């Protein structure tokens, strides 16, 4: 029940993009087409799951025992950067089609604040190993959900007569605001 709550909370109630504003850059940049949004989302879920495991291990097995919590940020970002690199090399070796779909999005993920945010929130909320992993999967699912919905709306938006000065980034923000408002409705979902 508790794990389920963590997953739902990270995926919809406190959606990473729409209520924590994490991963806004890809949200604005890669949300033009549904197909690329799905690929980007899958790449993020994948990296989030792996990085939540590794940052948890680094923090609790190395930084805490040696009282080096001050190196938290430096260590996390290095782990994430190298992980993304490794995942990219691995996927390229193992599956060419998968690499063609996800490949170009992977380098973008290093500077996706959602990945670092995930690691920081896990530490802050004192999640254990399994909870961190579930939290990572939930956050990734939430990111994908927001991205795909946004891409769907933007595909429609291309045909819509948007006021001149709102074209581009401005209308994207307004739409995101409306989406965030809709997602606030999920707050009632688990309040028993």
């Amino acid at each position, binding site marked *: 029940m508790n794990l389920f709550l963590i997953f739902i909370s990270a995926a919809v109630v406190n959606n990473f993009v729409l209520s924590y504003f994490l991963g806004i850059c890809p949200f604005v940049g890669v949300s033009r087409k549904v197909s690329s949004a799905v690929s980007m989302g899958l790449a993020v879920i994948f990296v989030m799951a792996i990085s939540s495991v590794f940052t948890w291990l680094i923090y609790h097995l190395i930084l805490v025992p040696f009282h080096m919590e001050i190196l938290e940020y430096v260590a996390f970002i290095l782990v994430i*950067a190298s992980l993304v690199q490794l995942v990219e090399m691995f996927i390229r070796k193992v599956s060419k089609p998968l690499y063609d779909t996800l490949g170009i999005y992977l380098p973008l993920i290093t500077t996706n604040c959602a990945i670092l945010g995930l690691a920081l929130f896990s530490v802050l909320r004192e999640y254990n190993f399994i909870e961190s992993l579930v939290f990572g999967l939930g956050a990734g699912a939430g990111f994908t959900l927001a991205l795909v919905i946004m891409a769907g709306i933007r595909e429609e938006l291309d045909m819509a007569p948007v006021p001149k000065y709102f074209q581009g980034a401005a209308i994207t923000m307004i739409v995101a605001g409306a989406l965030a408002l809709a997602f606030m409705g999920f707050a009632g979902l688990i309040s028993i």
Partner: protein
Amino acid sequence: MAKKQISIWQEIVKGLWRENPVLATLLGLCPTLAVTNTAVNGLAMGLATSFVLLSSSLFISILRHFIPHQVRIASYIVIIAAFVTVADRFLAGFFPVISQSLGPYVPLIVVNCLILGRQEAFSSKNKIGRSLLDGIGMGLGFSLVLIALGMVRELLGSGSIFGITLLGEWFEPWMVMILPPGAFLTLGFFIAIANWINDRRATA
């Protein structure tokens, strides 16, 4: 470096409007949206980001001939993360209340695309003085937008600015403005207004 050097003044001013990190290039949106529910938070985040931007620009500009090309991004990230830790501990040590309300968004300065972007595009290719000026301009431009967003959202959402109540009891606080949707809406309108001003300038 064939391009003619622009004047010192322009190096600073470009960050304020023409190449403003938020309104023109849409960099660093995550903190822009997350912490601007009050003007004070916007100010604190603007200053913390400017500090990290300036110090990393200075360091990376000094080290630009020593850092091998292949590992430059990794080196930049380590330097940025170190300065972010410095800023984070400084806030926690001297301004505990602000540190609490900014929460995990201070460490997230590490992945603010604005900072890494400036290092890659500017400090790694320019002299120390120029890099500092660029950092000052960008930091100032970023901070001003954050403060402005914070003021608008705080005024509409809580009826006050910098914690000082301006609108009386008659005003029903527009709660949604200090909640996440308000952040997106306000920024959307800011960008639209910036487009409008640019357009008028171009036709004038």
